[in-house]
């Protein structure tokens, strides 16, 4: 594959991200695709810290920090002003899983229903990591967090945010992860060229919260995709599904779970592990069926872009 990720950097070297932070990697790649005529809107999340302490900040685009539940709507307001002023600036809402799946869902649904002309990216590290690893509705079944301790690990499956967004029939929704940088950049590029609400769901490793060494951060996100726990796909118009990566090797879900301390309850409860494996298989099968309905002749559509 041809490597065509731009060399220009829009994130200054040096920021307050933890070692191995998937959110920091994702922002760097996303801005390479969106370019400098972008405004970033950041609600309460790790990135409200990563961007830096006043008077310095890490991004080379304007950043508007806003309240936890308002990323999508503050971005809508900024976009409205830019339109009134006759500017074509891309407005990027950049929120964590708490700010997207939980507290920000109402404003996100409102923006998506109105089809606001914004790019909304959720970097999902599957818990409230900035406040010290509390569970969110993005936390997977069987996971340890500080509010789902070993004795009572997370008892519900992860909320399917992609299906919620698809139900709004927005022009574009896609999953990606910085472990597949060409795919991530291609999806942000594609999003940039479209109009309306574009939603990008980024699986984003958090070594301190996932209880794993930071030098395995990329490996963890890669195994999430290969084990089909986090498939890479796109939904256009809410109905057309395209799987972008077909894992060609058999990677067991245990290979992904075992490298992370947060999944230790799964290895102490075989029934729970089987339940999780069943969810992953069902979700993958559903996705494949939808892909095949969209692409009757072609089972392996290429990576976009």
């Amino acid at each position, binding site marked *: 594959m041809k490597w065509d990720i731009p060399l220009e950097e829009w994130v200054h070297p040096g920021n307050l991200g933890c070692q191995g932070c998937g959110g920091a990697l994702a922002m760097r790649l996303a801005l390479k695709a969106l370019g400098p005529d972008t405004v970033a809107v950041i609600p309460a999340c790790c990135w409200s810290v990563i961007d830096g302490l006043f008077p310095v900040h890490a991004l080379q685009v304007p950043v508007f920090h806003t309240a936890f539940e308002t990323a999508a709507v503050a971005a809508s307001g*900024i976009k409205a002003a830019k339109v009134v002023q006759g500017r074509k600036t891309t407005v990027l809402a950049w929120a964590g899983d708490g700010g997207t799946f939980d507290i920000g869902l109402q*404003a996100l649904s409102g923006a998506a229903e109105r089809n606001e002309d914004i790019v909304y990216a959720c970097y999902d590290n599957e818990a409230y990591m900035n406040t010290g690893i509390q569970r969110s509705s993005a936390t997977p079944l069987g996971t340890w967090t500080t509010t789902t301790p070993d004795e009572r690990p997370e008892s519900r499956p992860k909320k399917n945010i992609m299906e919620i967004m698809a139900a709004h029939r927005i022009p574009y929704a896609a999953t990606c992860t910085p472990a597949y940088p060409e795919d991530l950049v291609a999806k942000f590029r594609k999003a940039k060229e479209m109009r309306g609400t574009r939603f990008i769901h980024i699986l984003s490793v958090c070594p301190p919260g996932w209880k794993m060494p930071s030098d395995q951060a990329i490996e963890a996100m890669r195994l999430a995709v290969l084990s089909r726990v986090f498939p890479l796909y796109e939904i256009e118009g809410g109905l057309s599904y395209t799987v972008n990566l077909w894992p060609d090797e058999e990677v067991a879900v245990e290979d992904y779970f075992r490298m992370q301390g947060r999944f230790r309850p799964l290895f102490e409860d075989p029934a729970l592990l089987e339940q999780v494996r069943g969810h992953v298989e069902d979700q993958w099968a559903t996705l494949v069926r939808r892909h095949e309905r969209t692409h009757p002749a072609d089972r392996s559509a290429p990576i976009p872009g």
Partner: protein
Amino acid sequence: MSERHLLTGNHAAAYGALLSRVQVISAYPITPQTTIVEELSEMVASGRLAAKFITVESEHSAMAACVGASAAGARAYTATSGQGLALMHEMLHWAVGARLPIVLSNVTRAMAPGWSIWSEQTDFLSQRDVGWMMLFAESVQEAQDFVIWLYRVAEQVYLPGMVAMDAFILSHTSEPLIIHDQDRVDAYLPPFEPLYDLDPAEPRAYGGLVARDHYYEIRYKMYENMERAGPLLAEAGAEFGEVLGFPYGAVDTYMLDDAEYVLVSAGAMSSNVRYAVRLLRERGIKVGMLRLVVFRPFPFDEVRLHLGGRAKVAVLDRNMSPGHSGIFAQEVRAALSLGAPATDVYGYVLGIGGRDIRVETVIEVVEDLLAREQPQRCLYVGVKGLPIGPARPGAEIRPLEPLRSEVAP
């Protein structure tokens, strides 16, 4: 030329936004505010107003959209009421801290439960400590003009402002309204030229993480600008008279010069207070009215000047801070404590949940005031079956007795 129309307070507020040439409107419907946003929707749809209207899914989002739009350099407007203003509360703080000159019209409404859509000021006054400029409109004309007046000053001090208009009594009552000539409003209120507008050519961060060595100074600048807002409102209020024919100030007075007794009022009830004052004067009672127009920044000097040395002051509060007293009464007492000739302040709470404040009600209050000899913290007017008095019979404030020093046996 300016035109005279018969319109409601809500339509007047919409005309205030139209004449101010707002660029982004974001609002959520709530009774009794709805006709403001209906009127604005038509103005935008017909092209009379060149603005983007964002029909959000909540008041919290309405203010968040205004925050985003204003930060990006647009003149932003919203309108709400009661529960909606309460839901906005977090973003009201954000608008101030981000130093955004947004203007909001709030139709003051009683808080639930029980569900009430009727007039009360507690929703508005609960936002007292957020840091918005706060004005109370008495008439349909003021419901329109205060929007324009506020933008003028808000964009000088980079602080937002809100106008209170009484539910139904002002929002849905038609009165003659002068809709100003657009050219004259343009002369009074120039286009918004923001200092910062999220321009990618100047990639700054706004509102991010700040440590203890900077936060206080950032806030201090905000407090300082709120102090500047007082004289600027006075200046802009006088200029409103010169350019548009209606002079405005922090307070409004009626028959005050020789008054021994003063009624302190705010909002639409002031019209009945004014009429009651005239009737009481016919009976030979030397009474006058001080109407608070600007509530934040609080007109300390005007209150000390007009109230100090009067025989008695009665503060009429269509609101209540449980465990203390009506909010205007608290504010008036606090201002008088800063050095003013002695006077006694009597707090009266009335009109809660839209209960009528009639001319007769005001006369009853003055009769009660004349009969009392000890200033009272909080006297309730018009509770069914009860005379005017404190919450518990016999709980009147009494002259203080000296503290006893002996040890109990």
